[in-house]
């Protein structure tokens, strides 16, 4: 039993050590923002678009089509979401944003499935196309409307409702305040327990219905892909298209479905950025989140709940950079100590060069931490991106890719 726990910790040290360190550092007054319900709340809001893009990547890649175009489909989601939101209303905007993404997913499917264009080439082309189309559409649609420019749309009309769960998080019933269980626990400031309460509270208070809708897609994707006949067919197409064909599966149709769903989910991710966030379309507001979604898919090892976890991590990094540059500074010491753990581990494994490099970096981060009180804004801005690289470099070795990922399939051709 103890041995099991020991080996569990040893295998997951990459996740567990930083988590523990963050919790400890968060006890200090100046870094307390690291684990408040406010930070977790915005972490969730920022994680959702990444998660949706990751799920989009999942649907596409499970059918064997690499989708680098997620970013572009997300851009379409932001513009169409903003346009729909401005013209018709918030929920209609969400739906129209999904359609916009799905349209570009469909174009990607035409290129890669019907014409067997290299998947990455087509994805790159989709990204460039989407940026151009969004710019053009924005210019011609909002030409004479106040507060719109060539790179920004007017504000959406209508709103998506929010709710706070009563009793657990102090949400109102009939306009009367109720008891706030987790809120009170959070305020007690007990090590671990209050931090955990803050985490739960992030999910329960002030949560938008759109967020709930998006979170519901996680189990739904799991169900579709792993527990329905069509899901089985989609996955089989990614693993062994020739065999699927011989069993009567319509390979092209499955790929089309997968890639179009992928586009719709990325479109939803983009629409979420607009309707659940800024309220307007801004050029470049996706900021590489489609690619981070792809990274969260790899981190989550092609599993919906893994994607949820991965995107949560990126959302957390993103939330910190937005809410409290001060707290990001606390992460420096976390990185330093984590690298030191790595030094010990590599020493133990007799990998001396790696150990030395880790030691150097660990020292550098420590010096940086001690000699500063904040991190420059410009560094804080790329926290999610550097997190992506760090996370992937520790998590990437054990993933199981679909067997025929990225291989163009032509009916009747043996590959």
């Amino acid at each position, binding site marked *: 039993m103890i041995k099991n726990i020991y080996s569990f910790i040893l295998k997951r040290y990459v996740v567990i050590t930083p988590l523990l360190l963050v919790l400890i550092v968060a006890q200090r007054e100046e870094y307390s923002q690291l684990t408040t319900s406010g930070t977790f709340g915005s972490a969730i809001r920022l994680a959702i678009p990444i998660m949706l893009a990751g799920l989009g990547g999942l649907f596409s890649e499970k059918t064997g089509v690499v989708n*680098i175009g997620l970013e572009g489909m997300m851009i379409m989601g932001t513009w169409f979401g903003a346009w729909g939101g401005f013209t018709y209303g918030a929920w209609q905007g969400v739906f129209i944003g999904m359609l916009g993404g799905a349209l570009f997913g469909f*174009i990607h499917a035409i*290129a890669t499935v019907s*014409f*067997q*264009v*290299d998947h*990455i*080439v*087509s994805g*790159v*082309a*989709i990204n*460039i*196309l989407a*940026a*151009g*189309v969004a*710019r*053009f559409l924005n*210019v*011609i649609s909002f*030409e004479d409307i106040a507060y719109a420019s*060539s790179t920004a749309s007017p504000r959406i009309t209508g709103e998506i409702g929010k709710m706070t769960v009563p009793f657990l998080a102090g949400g109102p019933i009939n306009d009367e305040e109720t008891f706030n269980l987790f809120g009170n626990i959070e305020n007690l400031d007990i090590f671990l327990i209050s931090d955990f309460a803050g985490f739960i509270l992030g999910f329960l208070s002030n949560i938008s219905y759109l967020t709930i809708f998006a979170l519901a897609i996680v189990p739904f994707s799991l169900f579709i892909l792993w527990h329905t006949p069509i899901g089985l067919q989609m996955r089989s197409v990614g693993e062994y298209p020739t065999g699927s064909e011989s069993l009567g599966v319509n390979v092209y149709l499955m790929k089309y479905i997968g890639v179009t769903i992928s586009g719709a989910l990325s479109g939803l991710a983009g629409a979420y950025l607009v309707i659940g966030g800024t309220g307007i379309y801004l050029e470049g507001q996706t*900021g*590489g989140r489609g*690619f*981070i979604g*792809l*990274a969260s898919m*790899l981190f989550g090892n092609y599993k919906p709940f893994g994607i949820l976890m991965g995107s949560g991590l990126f959302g957390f990094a993103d939330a910190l950079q937005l809410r409290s540059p001060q707290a990001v500074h606390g992460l420096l010491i976390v990185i330093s100590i984590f690298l030191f753990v790595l030094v010990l581990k590599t020493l133990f494994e007799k990998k001396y060069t790696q150990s030395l490099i880790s030691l150097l970096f660990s020292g550098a981060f420590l010096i940086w931490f001690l000699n500063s009180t904040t991190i*420059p804004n*410009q*560094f804080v*801005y*790329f926290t999610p*991106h*550097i997190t*992506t*690289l760090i996370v*992937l*470099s520790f998590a*990437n*070795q054990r993933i199981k890719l679909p067997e025929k990922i990225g291989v163009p399939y032509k009916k009747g051709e043996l590959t």
Partner: protein
Amino acid sequence: MKLRLRIASFSAPIIALSIAFGLSSLILLFIGKDPIETFRIMFEYGIKGKSIVSIINRSIPLYISAIAVAVGFKMGLFNIGVEGQYLVASLIAAFIGSQFSIITPIHILFIIIIAIACSAMWAAIAGYLKVKKGIHEVISTIMLNYIGTGLIAYGLTNVFDEAGSDYELPRTPELPESGQMPALNNLFRLDDLQDLHGFLFVAIAAGIFYYWLVWKTTLGFDLRITGANPVAAKFSGINPNRLIIVAMVTSGGFAGLVGLGPLLGYFHRFTIDFPTGLGFAGIAVALLGRNHPFGMGIGALLFAFLERSSQILDLNDVPKEIERMLQAFILLIVVVFYEIIRRFIVKQQVKDASKKVET
């Protein structure tokens, strides 16, 4: 290759161009503009003397950027990070170059070497992450672009900012006279036009060097064979990991030159309005020109032409963003048609070969 097949392979870009123009015309009709009139205005404006100089100037960085991307493409490696690489390199080269003054050729050569080195090192990170950590280069280079942008913003305001200048926005000190590339106007007798960048010659040299590197050296052979068939390449004794690093560094090295055309020829310093987006445009040009030094040259000129000639459209009440759509359409349609034609050619070659065997 037989003449018939050669014609077929040249037809792809022409068909794609026609379809892209057709689609754009439909869109113009849809928003109530006359497409023929629009394209006529663009063409007339684009072939003016001033425009032609501008088009050539614009095409220089586009072309080099395309070469940088193509080096990777040749072995199936996607360096999407040219964007970040050239910006990082331009900033550092602009700063170091402004710190001293020697005779012009040496000064410029020095700036070029610094830019190449910085950019190659920045690209090497992505190569390292792919080889050692298994991170796909598309993800790592994109992330490095954002990281690079952040570092540039920090470096420009805090490290490389011109000391004691009362200019409000951060910028590096100006390159001394000796670090500015002379224009070619005297050479071509273009008296009353704007400067034709001297970097044109470097771009042409880069194109020739790229051709030599990819088609005449062992490294180039390794790149091409890995791109065509990675399994065969591995069995023929090519070390894929070493090649990934070498290709990434080479691609990054070319990327270092991208920003130098504008830097040495026009801006003479790194400012916040230094041109961005050249890296992504380079991907499009490389795909359009099919990684061929000549094809990419045509592609770069075409894109530069569209960019320049669309400037006139706003004066004629047509949104000039139609040009971006046009570029994107060309790109997407051209990749589809290249694939169709490639398959057609392979089929024909198999047919011809089997005919020969029969007779």
